[in-house]
Structure formats: structure tokens, C-alpha cells
């Protein structure tokens, strides 16, 4: 293999690792929040009130974050979870219907940019929504 080719492959590998790290960094910016989301998704006694408090908390972090890249990651995370929060917030004292839950679920999934977040939000929706 020629030196030029070796150099080319080294650069390609370096670039690939740098890209992977960059994606990883972005994920880590909301790692604590995702961990909290996972805990909520595992709870069998999760209430609507607790879920709405969590969504509001992420909303506030999205507004208050001053570092641009962190704010982007936090706000993007907020919009992955907000539809299922909005569904219950708009229903107020009444529970949303099963159909409303299904509808919000599709919109929520389409707004998701991370497969694991999507799965966790779906698990929470199943816990809080009425059964068919």
C-alpha cells in the first residue's frame, strides 16, 4: 500500500472517530436528563403530575441554558418529549382519550431524533394513557 493511500485511510479513520465523538458529546449533553427519563419510564406508579413536572423542568432548562450547543441539545430533547406532556396539560383535569393518545404518539414519534428517547417516551405514554 502506498504512503499516500495509508495517509488517506488514517485521515478517514481520524475523521470518522471525530464525528462519532461529536455525536456522542451531543448525546452526553442531555445524559442526566435521559437517565431521569429512563427512571420515570421504569416506574410503575408514575403519575401525570410527575410527568408534567419533568417536562416543565426540561422546558425551563431549554430556556435558561446559556451555552449554545447545550441549549440546542436541551431544546431538541424537550421537543422529543413535549407532545406527550402537552397532551395531558391540555386535557387538564380530564384524561385524554385513547384516540388522542394514539394521535399525539404519532406526532411525538415524528419529532423524535433519537431512537432510545422515542422508546422511553412511548413507554411513559402507555403507562399514563387510558387502555383501549
Amino acid at each position, binding site marked *: 500500500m502506498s504512503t499516500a493511500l495509508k495517509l488517506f485511510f488514517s485521515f478517514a479513520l481520524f475523521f470518522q472517530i471525530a464525528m462519532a465523538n461529536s455525536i456522542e458529546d451531543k448525546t452526553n449533553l442531555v445524559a442526566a436528563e435521559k437517565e431521569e427519563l429512563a427512571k420515570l419510564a421504569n416506574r410503575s406508579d408514575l403519575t401525570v403530575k410527575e410527568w408534567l413536572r419533568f417536562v416543565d423542568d426540561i422546558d425551563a432548562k431549554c430556556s435558561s441554558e446559556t451555552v449554545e450547543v447545550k441549549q440546542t441539545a436541551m431544546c*431538541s430533547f424537550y421537543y422529543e418529549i413535549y407532545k406527550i406532556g402537552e397532551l395531558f396539560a391540555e386535557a387538564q383535569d380530564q384524561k385524554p382519550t385513547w384516540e388522542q393518545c*394514539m*394521535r399525539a404518539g*404519532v406526532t411525538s414519534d*415524528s*419529532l423524535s*431524533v433519537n431512537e432510545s428517547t422515542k422508546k422511553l417516551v412511548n413507554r411513559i405514554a402507555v403507562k399514563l394513557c387510558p387502555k383501549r
Partner: protein
Amino acid sequence: MFATDNKEMRSSLILPILIFNLSLVAEGNQCLQGSPNNQRFKRILETSDSYLVKEFRASTGFKPTQGGLGCSGGNCSTVTKPLALPGAMGEIPKECIQASLKRKVAQTSIECKQTPQGNWTYIQHSGRSKSTPCFDESAVDYTHYVTNKVISCFQGLPMQNGVTETIDPTVLYSKLNNESGFNFTYSYKGGVGAGQLTGWAVQEMNVLDPSRTKGKTVKGGGRFILDNILASSNPQCAGLKPVIENDLKFKYHSPRKINCEWTSMETGLARNLIYSIGYFSFLKHQIIGKELKKRAPNAYKDPELLNLLTLVGYGPLGANRALTLIRTLGMGSSSAYLAGVKSRLKTEVYLKNTASKMNEVKRIAGNSCRLL
């Protein structure tokens, strides 16, 4: 004497040779895209019993045409008959559609054929295929007719929250030019037809995938738009109703599975545009507009900003990106601040791609497309 005979003979030969040469030029120019040997579109326009095709024939005085489009030397100008659609400012001119179709886009396309029983069969053409159906002037006329019919039907259509829809033809043109260049046969796993529809859009606009709902029919969040079209008294919606009136029965149209529902000339083009424009309206008003109104009520009143954000929603990170930008860019109310936000939005991937494809069309169309 012989000299005179030669002269007469030459004169008598000039005309036939000229006609022959002109016919060759016309033949060469006959198709904006596709092969002159595949006249599927022309046959459909001449013979189809589809409601929309019949309406096209009746209202435009369609006659089988021969010859070229006169679309050479960077100038696609042709004589365009006005279609008598309401709100001329809301139209995408034929010249613009023609110029878009001249853009070279190498994509898989679907050639649909309806059996006498009404079922669809199709041929899949690769991006390099030389035998796709010919897009001649009549096919451009039909695409122009259907596109503007759908736009006219949407103008003033009630959305939720007391808002009525206003479609900006330039915004829609840039979107369709970017998505498919108006070739309604394009199809790949990431999107189908004129508006490059996705499964998400189809679920929002009609009914959810039954695998999510245990087989029960659940309407999507944007289904009210189709219902409003069906209930509309706007005469421009009348010809579109037969296309969508039975869609609820389809349960879930997966654009990946039943391609001709989204790519056929007879009904696929119209259905695809109704769903695509409908999904654009859904995102604009129910998702992005709703959030913008909540976070920055003054910025919400700026239609250009709302359209730009909605276009961002079609980019690789979807509507999540548009919503995130509402928060991270901040939305001050001064016009200078909003101008800065708009400039920043124009650097987003999808909007940069859209602008570059609009520049491509500008080079092709010269001055003939008044939207550019």
C-alpha cells in the same frame, strides 16, 4: 433549360427537407424528460376515465399535441392558456414547472398502469433508465392544471384555531422543485411522488398505521384538512373530492407499499399534492405555528418567518429542528431582529439545498418564470 429545371427542383425540395428537419428538431425536443417512445402520459390524457383527467380535457380544451415544447436556449417560454383559476397571484406558472422538469434528477421512477378492473400495476425505472414516460407539453399542462387546482382549493381553507390557509406559490414552488422537480413518478424509500411524501405525513393526514392501533381506524392530527376539503364549497375543490373521498377506507396508505396511489398521473399526482400541501399546512399551523405563537406572538404574525421555519421542518432533523430553532434563536419582535433570524434560517441545510435548486432552475428558465 437544364439550369432552370435544377433551380425549380431545388426549390421544390427545400420545403419538404425543411419540414423534415423541423420535425426532427421537434421530435428531439418533444420530451422534457423520458423517452419519445413511451407515450404513456399522452395516452392517459387522451383516454382515461379518471374524473380529474376528464375535467382537465373539458376545461382546457385539451387536444392531442404534436411536436416540441420550444424549450431551448435556456428559455422555456411557451404560450400558456390561462386556466381561469381564482386568485391568479396564487398560481405556479407553467413556465416554472417546465423549467423544473428540465432539471436533471437521477431518481427511481414508477410508471403506473391501471387495469380495466381498476387495479394498479407498475414498472420501476432506475435513475438511469432511458425508457421512462415522455413528459411532453400535454403532461406539463396537466401537472400545471392539477398543481394549481390543489393550491386554489387550499387558499382560504379553514385550519384549526380560526386560521384560514394562505399558500405562497413561491414557497410551495421552491419546496416541490426541491423535492421532485415536479416529476410525480419519482419514488424512493425516503419519499414518494411530487411532494416526496413520507409515512409520517400520510399517517398525520389520513389514518394511523393500523399496526399502532391494533387495527382500529384512528384519524391523524391533520385529517381534518381532508375533511374540510370534502366539505368545501370552493369549486376548485370539487374535482379533488373524488380523489380522496374513499381514503378513509384505505386504512393506511403506506407510500412505500402502494406507490401508484401516490405516483400515478390519474389520481396519484393530485392525492400526493393534497397530502403534501396538507402536511405542510399541518406543520405550519398545528405544530410550528402553535409553538411560535406561544413563545413569540409577534414573530408568529410574520408569514415569511413561519414559512421558513416550516421549510426547515422538512430538513434532515424534521420539525424538531424548526421547534428547537424557535427557542435557540430567540424571536425578538423588532423587524431588524427578525430579519437577522431569517438570514440565519436560510443557512439551514434544507433551505440551502432549496436555494441552490432554485438557482439551477433560474439558469434554465431565464426570465420566463415569474416566481424566480
